[in-house]
């Protein structure tokens, strides 16, 4: 096996030093009764070349093995990834490094993550950002826990029913054992979270709203801020499409306390849903409540600029059962990916890509309405929107996927039972007008 360097002679010499007769004897402290009698019943080892064949065979059983038109978002977005992003991220020095606990030989990761934190605060308009989390959903669940722990009295949190359904399910999983309660805020007829319904709620530790929400509509975070102020509870905002912030007002400008979101759009492949990038940001006041790692700037013993992991006294390896969270590994390499992407796009690039996304989505919606779909909401959206499909679209949708490798929207009925025939469409900068026109033509025919 090419990954195992030991020659017969090496093994003999080393066994002579350890005082064992053979490799099996190394396990002398394991009682015989504990040893497995069956060994490992696994397939025989494959050569690199057979592995290639087998993996290509598996990959070819996914529709994504051919170029396809992706008009689906719902938390995973199809964006162009510049060649420099995978190129730089594949550098061994980033990819095969450990967590930067030894800062003298980890300055590359540390400065990169410090720059990531800085760019995320610029993107979201927040004071501070952590060095990343697993995904948008788990980051949001951590925010809910922060709000509930900070509150002396309340054990309930108000959560918009238009937050990504999977994110709400993760929150439920995280909150259940502690006895915390999630109170759903219903949607209004514009496909927005009903702020009046939240107004009528009492005893909440916080309120969580996603914008753009799961239906693509842009929420009025300002009215939630005002309402949360009256109730003296924390305002948490979330998002699944990070690029929306290239165009929209930043969450920080509404005075939100905590922001959680998914950063996959910032240079990461969809990869069947993971790994993405959990983003977590807050106001300065939240610094010691936020979970996970931070990189901070400092100096070395010669006075040179340098970076270290800092504020570790919140973390599990120091605080153990009293830690702010159990998180250890995060999604560091994907944070670095986002850093490279944001640095390459820059202030003007990210603005222009965001505008393109919006333009394409507006065009797609117009084409679909023209082809017989029903516009469901009049609310402003970024690159996703809901339409009601004409009869027979489910079959047409399958046909489009099979014949044209075009994936037309995400059906919403499994998320919201009263939304039969409703589809969540997404158009990004990767979608050509030609593909959208083809869809409209096929639907009409």
């Amino acid at each position, binding site marked *: 096996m090419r990954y195992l360097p030991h020659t017969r002679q090496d093994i003999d010499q080393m066994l002579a030093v350890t005082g064992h007769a053979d490799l099996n004897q190394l396990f002398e402290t*394991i009682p015989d009764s504990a040893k497995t009698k069956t060994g490992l019943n696994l397939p025989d080892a494959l050569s690199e070349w057979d*592995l*290639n064949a087998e993996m290509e065979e598996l990959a070819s059983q996914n529709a994504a093995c051919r170029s396809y038109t992706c008009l689906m978002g719902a938390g995973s977005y199809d964006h162009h990834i510049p060649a420099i992003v995978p190129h730089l991220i594949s550098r061994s020095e980033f990819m095969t490094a450990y967590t930067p606990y030894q800062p003298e030989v980890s300055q*590359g990761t540390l400065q990169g993550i410090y720059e990531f934190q800085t760019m995320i605060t610029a993107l979201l308009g927040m004071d501070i950002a952590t060095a990343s989390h697993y995904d948008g959903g788990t980051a949001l669940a951590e925010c809910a826990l922060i709000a509930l722990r900070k509150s002396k009295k309340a054990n309930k949190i108000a959560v918009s029913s238009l937050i990504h359904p999977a994110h709400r399910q993760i929150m439920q999983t995280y909150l259940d054992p502690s*006895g915390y309660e999630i109170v759903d805020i219903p949607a209004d007829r514009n496909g927005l979270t009903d702020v009046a319904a939240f107004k009528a709620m009492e005893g909440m530790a916080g309120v969580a709203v996603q914008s753009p929400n799961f239906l693509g509509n842009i929420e009025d975070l300002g009215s939630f801020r005002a309402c949360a102020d009256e109730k003296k509870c924390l305002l948490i905002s979330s998002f699944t499409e990070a690029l929306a912030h290239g165009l929209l007002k930043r969450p920080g400008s509404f005075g939100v306390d905590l922001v959680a979101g998914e950063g996959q759009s910032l240079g990461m492949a969809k990869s069947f849903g993971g790994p993405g990038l959990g983003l977590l940001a807050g106001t300065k006041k939240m610094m010691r409540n936020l979970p996970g790692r931070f990189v901070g700037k400092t100096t070395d013993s010669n006075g040179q600029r340098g970076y270290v992991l800092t504020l570790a006294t919140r973390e599990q390896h120091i605080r153990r059962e009293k830690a702010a969270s159990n998180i250890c590994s995060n999604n560091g390499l994907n944070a670095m990916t986002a850093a490279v992407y944001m640095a390459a796009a820059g202030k003007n690039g990210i603005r222009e890509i965001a505008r393109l996304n919006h333009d394409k989505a507006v*065009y797609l919606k117009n084409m679909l309405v023209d082809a017989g779909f029903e516009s469901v909401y009049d609310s402003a959206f970024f690159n996703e929107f809901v339409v009601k499909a004409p009869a027979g679209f489910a079959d047409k949708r399958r046909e489009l996927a099979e014949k044209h490798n075009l994936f037309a929207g995400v059906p919403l009925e499994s998320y919201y039972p009263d939304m039969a025939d409703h589809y969540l469409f997404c158009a990004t900068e*990767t979608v050509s007008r030609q593909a959208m026109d083809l869809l409209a033509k096929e639907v009409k025919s």
Partner: protein
Amino acid sequence: MTQPGTTGLIFNEPELWDKSREGRCGISMPRSDVPRTDLDPALTGDAPELPQLSELDVVRHFVRLSQWNFSIDAGMYPLGSCTMKYNPKTNEVQAARKGFAAAHPLAGDEFSQGALKLMYELEQLLGEITGFPAVTLQPAAGAHGELTGMLMIHAWHAKQGKQRSKILIPDTAHGTNPASATLCGYQSVNIKSGPDGILEPATVAEAMDEDTAGIMITNPNTLGLFEENIKEVCDIVHAKGGLVYGDGANMNAVMGIIKPGELGIDVLHLNLHKTFSTPHGGGGPGSGPVAVVEELIPFLPVPRVEKENDAYSFITDCPDTIGRMHTFYGHFSVMVKAFAYILSMGGDGLTRASQLAVLNANYIKESLKTTLDLPYDRPCMHECVFTDKTVQEYHISTMDMAKRLLDYGFHPPTVYFPLVVDAAFMVEPTETESKDDIDQFIEAVKAIVKEAASDPDKLKSAPYLPKVTRLDEVTAARKPCLKG
């Protein structure tokens, strides 16, 4: 013997925004083929203040940064409990295949059969390696797997009709163990290991009662020792109606030797980024699959992958499930890499990997036990733990030795963990290091211990060769500067 550490030209590099020039952009913009439609200005803000750089600016910046990093591909990482083995390059090729990388998670089962089949088969392979009938791949990291496992234990007790309030955690446990237990509302009860560094059944029997949900055991433990009484400990916990959580972070020592599922463990997490060779990425993304016994299968997170008549599908209709742990299905591309690794190694290869990992650790232990203090002088598994006792008389600490190792071209071992020994110096070489590289490491440690006696001041200011010297971590924490 020539040590790998040396000097060479590396570049200075400012922070990104110091290189920013108004008007630069490093990204190719698609030509617009649709009309421009402006959003209501009341909803839009100014463009975010990201730096403005050309493509080459970005490339040089990150290449220069990368050159300040230590990495497995450059040198040995003897980090205890971290299993920093070689990350095979073919694994990256497999994960980058278009059919995997470009797959949308909501494309639908029929358009995702390759991904589903890979997940299903990886679950089977990990089940065989650990001796459990079912596995979930959803947890995003080891600690996330721990949380998943503890949530299942919590849900199982709830289903029995009576929740419990405590959980036993040995003093050798990873810090994530008590933190995960706390998230489930369990109070951690710290139990001491015996004089041999392993758990004694009597200690567990004394602490275990009917208000205790179970025990969290790392085996081999973080002293690198096999918990010889594991079966008795499991029996004691089960007899009182508790469950046994196994932290499989150290599974690299025992593949093909033991199967935790055969020993009485009820739920076990693995770290694909340790045992199964996927890259650590400077702190993730990892992946922390969880394996369970039959009785816990109903509690596994959803969605789960099912196979029927050679067709694979996701199912969510599981009434007792703990719920969802990840927005989609977990870190799929990490799963692809681990799957490729297992197929490349085969059963014999994995067993061999464990044997050689244990050989390497014992060889280091024997070679250094007269140089450094070895608090538990017993045959070890994949790692061994020393302390700084032999150099304390020169006022040299574990940290000083660790920093000096950098000058010799080695990443330091894990230091000051496990907490059960003072000033731990915890070495895990892994099986992918050759005897030659290990001999170099041993020589470096011996040379440093000599320096401790002859020139202690030199060690106290080490390292000298890296881009920066020791950093002021105290000021960093007291006056946090978290953005530029």
